[in-house]
């Protein structure tokens, strides 16, 4: 076993560039292939096998992080990273993306089959007419490709182009059900996110300007080595524009307005991918800009912005979760909340050090796994009970006990109670605030978390335990929830691993 892992490690380290190019291009090829292949079953197996493969190779590459000293010089002026050292966040997010895609492709194997057979009417009484599956699977693969490119880019311009590509490739996915509401959600998503990304482009230009009057280089390597000499005014401006631009994509308040609509109208697989993978990739852009700011000596400025908007985002999400009538929207707001938490934690890391960065990773991984697991379950809930409003979802406890159990477990994990990996970040925030003497903010945060817990709890309680008891028998499909089960168990495992390895937080 150790022989295998060291072999893989060296293989990965030597062939990093080739493997990364493979990871980026393979999904594109598979996507094109899925347009050309004629049968739906073939398509689904293509994406399933493709994402498993993607995950395995990502695993190999991530293993190369084991010894950071092997490749000291990272990503000098080549557009794509040639190792992950110095860019651990890229590795973390890439592995999350890959894992999520594997789960999503497994889920969609069954989900697409169900959708094929499921002729039903939507809220207005029109027959739901789904998109051709080729479009769905094809764009899913393109989406994976774009997100991989985001995680591998070593140039801010390429990062920008890849994030824009993710917007454009995920739009058809949101429109899968072809209803008026999903059309509206898609349009809002397209316009808001494209404008946001255009603002981020301006930020990219400003960043280049800060490197010198006639335009500095945008390669990570160059920026990191030169950032202390950058013009502070332009650096600050670039951070602000990056924050607004990529923050729109990420779901920070007050730019989160597209998020609940898009997540509730898209099919649950897509919502899972958007929440779990896409928001993280957008966060990567902000992360990079933040690290440049810190090197440039403007860490305080950027941290205060991030902390403020992190708290504001949690506040807004608490406000809106409280009276939600639809459970998918509630999950979307919970994503917003988690994004706010991540932003807050990253801002805190300026004051506290690497401890907080570990917690950002923890909350990112935890959120992605739990949220996508929840969305998978929510998809099945929608399929069984045919309504998006929680009041109309019957008592799951009696009808679909397995699903109800998973749903409940997910809720516990989502709300941050132990054994959820989201417990540690929240605890850490309290500790930081209390130790820093900011009693009002810590009280506010506790209050907001309680509100969120209550809002979510009401929804979950109502769905699980009460509701109209129409007498239909529902046949549960247990195997489709395998990804959710595995994600939840991974999260619990992470909780215990973190607990064990850090023996609590200092």
């Amino acid at each position, binding site marked *: 076993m150790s022989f295998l892992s060291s072999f893989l490690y060296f293989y990965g380290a030597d062939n990093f560039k080739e493997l990364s190019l493979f990871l980026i291009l393979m999904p594109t090829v598979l996507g094109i292939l899925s347009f050309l292949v004629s049968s739906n079953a073939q398509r689904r197996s293509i994406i399933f096998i493709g994402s498993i493969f993607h995950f395995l190779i990502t695993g190999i590459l991530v293993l190369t992080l084991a010894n950071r000293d092997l490749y000291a010089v990272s990503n000098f002026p080549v557009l794509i990273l040639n190792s992950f050292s110095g860019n651990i966040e890229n590795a973390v997010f890439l592995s999350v993306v890959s894992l999520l895609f594997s789960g999503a492709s497994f889920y969609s194997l069954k989900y697409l089959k169900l959708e094929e057979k499921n002729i039903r009417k939507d809220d207005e009484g029109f027959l739901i007419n789904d998109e051709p599956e080729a479009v769905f699977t094809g764009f899913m693969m393109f989406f994976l490709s774009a997100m991989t490119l985001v995680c591998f880019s070593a140039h801010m311009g390429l990062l920008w*182009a890849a994030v824009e590509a993710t917007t*454009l490739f995920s739009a058809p996915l949101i429109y899968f059900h072809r209803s008026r509401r999903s059309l*509206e959600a898609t349009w809002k998503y397209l316009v808001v996110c494209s*404008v946001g990304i255009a603002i981020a482009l301006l930020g990219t*230009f400003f960043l*280049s300007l800060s490197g010198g009057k*006639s335009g500095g280089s*945008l390669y990570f390597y160059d920026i990191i080595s030169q950032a202390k000499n950058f013009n502070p005014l332009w650096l600050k401006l670039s951070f602000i524009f990056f924050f607004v631009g990529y923050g729109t994509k990420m779901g920070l308040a007050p730019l989160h307005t597209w998020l609940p609509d898009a997540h509730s109208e898209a099919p649950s697989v897509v919502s899972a991918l958007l929440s779990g993978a896409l928001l993280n990739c957008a966060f990567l852009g902000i992360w990079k800009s933040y690290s440049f700011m810190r090197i440039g000596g403007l860490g305080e400025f950027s941290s205060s912005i991030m902390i403020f908007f992190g708290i504001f985002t949690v506040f807004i999400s608490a406000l*809106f979760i409280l*009276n939600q009538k639809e459970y998918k929207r509630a999950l979307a707001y919970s994503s917003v909340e988690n994004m706010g938490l991540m932003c807050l934690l990253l801002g805190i890391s300026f004051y506290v050090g690497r401890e907080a960065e570990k917690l950002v990773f923890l909350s990112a991984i935890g959120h992605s796994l739990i949220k996508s697991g929840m969305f998978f379950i929510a998809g099945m809930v929608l399929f069984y009970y045919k309504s998006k409003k929680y009041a109309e979802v019957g008592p799951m406890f009696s009808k679909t006990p397995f699903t109800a159990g998973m749903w409940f477990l997910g809720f516990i994990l989502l709300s941050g109670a132990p054994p959820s990996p989201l417990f540690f970040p929240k605890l850490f925030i309290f500790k930081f605030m209390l130790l820093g003497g900011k009693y009002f903010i810590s009280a506010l945060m506790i209050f907001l978390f309680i509100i969120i817990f209550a809002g979510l709890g009401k929804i979950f309680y109502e769905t699980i335990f009460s509701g109209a008891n129409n007498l239909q028998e529902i046949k549960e499909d247990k195997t489709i929830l395998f990804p959710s089960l595995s994600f939840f168990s991974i999260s619990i495992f992470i909780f215990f691993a973190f607990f064990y390895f850090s023996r609590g937080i200092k």
Partner: protein
Amino acid sequence: MHIISQFLILAVIFCDFFLLSSYSTFELVKFAALQGVLTALLPLMAAEHFAAEGIAFALSVILLKGFFFPFVLRKLIVKNNAYEEKKREYSGALSIAVYLFVFFVSVWLSIKLDLEVKSLSWIIPASFMTIFSGLFLIILRTQTVSQIVGYMVLENGIYCFGSAVFVQQPLMVEAAILLDIFVAVFVMGMAVFHIGKEFNNSDSENLNELREETGQEADI
């Protein structure tokens, strides 16, 4: 060369004026295309020497922004019967007020930022004006086609800013921007096509179903 570029910049600013005050979608498309072509010509005029790749790139931009996009958008307009925006009474004077406001803000911003741009000092306010005009078009217009045009104008402005400030532009970044606009307009155009099929017109005022439910609304 210098004087030609100054007139080009003036023309870009005038295009903004027509974009903000026009209520026919055909005119919007026309002026956005004109502006795209002008911003593509600007770096050519400012450069000291003509590089082959610069000319080729400018030609491809002109083809894309000047011919392809208007063609696609015009087809969309005709198909969706989206010839005119809804007019409001005060909109004539309001659009001029918005234009002047945008102008002052851009000039103020460029003074504050104090960039040293060789030989073409008015390109920075022009690019800011274009960016703001694009944003205003997206915000204030109801026709979805106008919103697409607004996005194109926004990208025009950003491209103009980029070509103004960077002497040696990495061609890849410019090509990436171009590709991005191309795919974005393509995808947005598809969305507008679907909207048109769904509602028989492409007014974005139809897209008003998704909202927060406050619980106080009566269930009809």
